[in-house]
């Protein structure tokens, strides 16, 4: 057993501020949509949603820079290795107390399912949200300048909202799966403190 830093300072800052931003944007977004939330009031919800959107984009720019410069982007390269085993683990093994099929490593801290999920999150859901959000915000200008038909805002809104629902589902699954670590709180603690006890020393010696 060895204690290692699994998540660096910036990574944790990025993760938690992104979480806070996205959750607040979910709340404001669904209030704007009229889903029965009355937290901020419509006008303030709209302003907050837009301000947070800019903040999120800034954060993402920094995160991209960090991923590129540290090489951490490699963590998200999808792999089929152990994919089947991971699925089997979640479907059956976990109930029997079977060991986790993939060992964590400082340079391979994500299992193949996580890689797929986070890659999808980063390259699909977030870009879709950012793009449709920007189109939504600038729709009056675009409509005016490019003579977009009235139905285009409808389309933009549908994609933006469906993707937002997807984000909520993602958040639920994500939060639950953090409890599947060594103990239910192991993963959460690691994301807060950065440290995690890694069991298998053999992996740690890999370069």
């Amino acid at each position: 057993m060895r204690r290692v830093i699994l998540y660096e300072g910036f990574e944790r800052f990025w993760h938690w501020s992104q979480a806070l931003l996205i959750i607040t944007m979910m709340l404001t977004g669904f209030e704007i949509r009229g889903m029965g939330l009355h937290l901020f009031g419509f006008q303030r919800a709209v302003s907050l949603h837009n301000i947070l959107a800019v903040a999120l984009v800034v954060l993402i720019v920094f995160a991209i820079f960090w991923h590129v410069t540290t090489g951490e982007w490699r963590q998200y390269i999808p792999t089929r290795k152990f994919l089947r085993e991971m699925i089997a683990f979640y479907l059956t093994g976990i109930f029997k107390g079977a060991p986790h099929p993939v060992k964590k490593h400082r340079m391979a801290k994500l299992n193949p399912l996580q890689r797929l999920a986070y890659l999808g999150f980063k390259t699909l859901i977030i870009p879709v949200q950012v793009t449709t959000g920007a189109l939504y915000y600038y729709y009056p200008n675009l409509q005016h300048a490019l003579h977009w038909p009235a139905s285009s805002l409808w389309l933009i809104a549908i994609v933006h909202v469906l993707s937002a629902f997807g984000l909520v589902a993602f958040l639920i699954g994500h939060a639950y799966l953090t409890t599947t670590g060594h103990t239910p709180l192991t993963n959460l603690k690691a994301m807060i403190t950065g440290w995690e006890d890694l069991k298998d020393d053999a992996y740690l010696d890999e370069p």
Partner: protein
Amino acid sequence: MFPSFQNPSPPRLRWVIQTLAGLLCLAQVQAWAQQPAPSAPAGHGAFLEVHRAKGRRQTADHSKFKILQGPFKEGDGPAVTRACLTCHTKAAEQVMATSHWTWNVADHGKDGFGKSTHLVNNYCISIIGGNTESCARCHIGYGFKDKTFDFTRQENVDCLVCHDTTGDYEKEKAGLPNPGVDLAAVAQKVGEPTNRNCGVCHFFGGGGDATKHGDLDDTILKAPRSEDVHMSRQGAGMECVDCHVSDGHRIAGPNYVVPADRREQAKYPGEAASRMSCTACHSDSPHKSYILNRHYQKVACQTCHIPAFARGELPTNLYWDWETAGRLKNGRPYQEEDAKGFEGYNSIHGEMVWDRNVKPTYLWYNGNLAFVRLTDSIQVPADGKVVLNPAEGSYADPNAKIWPFKLHDGRQPFDTVLNRFVAPYTAGPKGSGAYWGDWNWEVAIRKGMETAGLPYSGKYGFVKTTMLWPITHMVAPKEQALSCLECHRRNGRLQGVSGFYLPGRDRGRGVDFIGLGLILVTGLGVLVHGLMRYFHGHF
């Protein structure tokens, strides 16, 4: 280089300056602290100041002019006009070129629109069926009784109705002055028109105070700021002519030629540009919020800033059913009040509905109302209701905006063979054939159409009609502007305005079903998985 910038003042001098400046600021701060808070926000200009400035504007004291000393014969309006014209030699000529005189909007390129033409409405219907004499109480002329009126006689122009500042001037049938008015006294006190001058006619359209427009009535003269932020004496204290600017008696703003919204500016210095759009004074981006400002592209200012019309004490007419007119009690016409205390029935008008504080109806509008005339053939649509002046515009129309309207419903007579509206003769005594004298539609319509010189088949019926009245006055203080949720929700104020996606209103049930379903399935999956782990003892 400038040496004074490089060399700081000597230390002692600087100390003195700083101390003095500090003391000055302190005194100012104390003065602020001692000032009582202003009781009512005064808008952009305190009323008194605006009006003191107006008082100074006049360069002549008309009581000093001999020719206005009179005496004038009782009711001899033309004599006063002749006196006015001795100095203002071109005034009558100017007036006679305007629609105030012709009751036709030909001077704005819309010949055939106006009261003296074939235009039809669903209040008093039309003046040309023989009703001119009583309707011309509001004509700015003397003696407009019928078609024979000489529109070219300069002395027939009534200067006093617009320029009286005493409030004592009064007009009667055919627009002649009330014989009781001291014409010399009124003539010596003429000045720039105030709200009252415009109001004596424009507040009373449709035959009574507040009846027609919904956003214009007598209460404006004493309105609190909450009723009309512009014209209230506690608000900006503005006069009608502050926005309806005139140029040689040609006043901006006939209803028939108003673009929905625009930013008007003088084309050359000194040109009297009309200020008939909000943006002419307020700019097209008056809000702090960028998003609110962008609403301007598709939403008229009036839509949010006039939350309701008829916000004074007076009700405006919303429904007028000519078909039910003519019920008599013991052979005499009568009136009845409805549950609200408003005139629910009057034999001369029929059943009526009145109300105060009415939420407008919202429609796309590019400034054009497609008026139906007595000479146009009508088609009764499926819902049985003919719109007399449908608003033009749609989401796709770059000049159109969502505007508030007063919708005036009613039923009125039409020629069932020719499919045209008719102009009945209504205002006249017993035996004249007028509807209010003899209570016979058959005769009243025939006589009316004869007088108007229009064909009539002899067969009439009644048809439901709606008339649109754009709402633009009675702007509320900004605190009373509509909140976002008045429109950005299901079944809000804009529920009926179609052709575009409105966030908050057009939330699709299918999308919600898919999205909430996805969340539900994920939640259930997580729950089942968690419970299984728990029961297997591996949580």
